[in-house]
């Protein structure tokens, strides 16, 4: 079981799911109508490290963060 959290303006509570890689996370999140529109513009961190590979392997207890477009300053 891994945990997915949605940062900033997405405004959705964290969800838990079974997933072996980020590709599995992608498949499951696309099923959620409130989340699917965000995916094309969101970056991803696993345990607070930015990740850019869809085949990134997850282990139980990992925390996946979904980061929408930013504007600091």
């Amino acid at each position, binding site marked *: 079981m891994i945990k997915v959290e949605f*940062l900033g303006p997405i405004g959705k509570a964290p969800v838990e799911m079974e997933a072996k890689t980020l590709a599995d996370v992608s498949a499951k*999140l696309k099923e959620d109508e409130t989340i699917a529109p965000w995916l094309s513009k969101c970056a991803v961190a696993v345990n607070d490290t930015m990740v850019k590979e869809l085949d990134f392997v997850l282990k139980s207890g990992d925390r996946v963060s979904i980061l929408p*477009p*930013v504007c*600091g300053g």
Partner: protein
Amino acid sequence: MELYNGPLDVKEIFGRWLDEEAESNYGAYIPFVGTIRAEGGIEALSFDIYEPVLKSWFDGWQRKAEARGAIVKMAHSIGDVPVHTSSYISAVFSPKRRVALELIDEFVEDFKANAPIWKYDVIGGSRIYAEDRSTPMDGAGLLK
């Protein structure tokens, strides 16, 4: 890296950073101070920050700066920051002018593009995501 609730005390931060490096023999100190502009009828801007990833981003820049003999510092607000007060200060200290001028530009631009901070307009007391001014981070779209 320093995070504060509400507006920054710009003079305190500027002066303290100056004092911290007073004996470090840097020849150039360039702060960038970001202040909330009155536009679009806003009362304030408001900010969410994801601190763990911001810390990693900042530590990465500290290493890049050190490789060029320089250091970087940064302070940012969390929550509401009223018009005409400041939400952001970053700074470079470097022995050399040229390195300092180049680094402050790169550091501030990468901050705008990749620091995990979300901005909201505060209008009539409600908080509206500044989507049109926001930038997808490097690597965005991985799960699309």
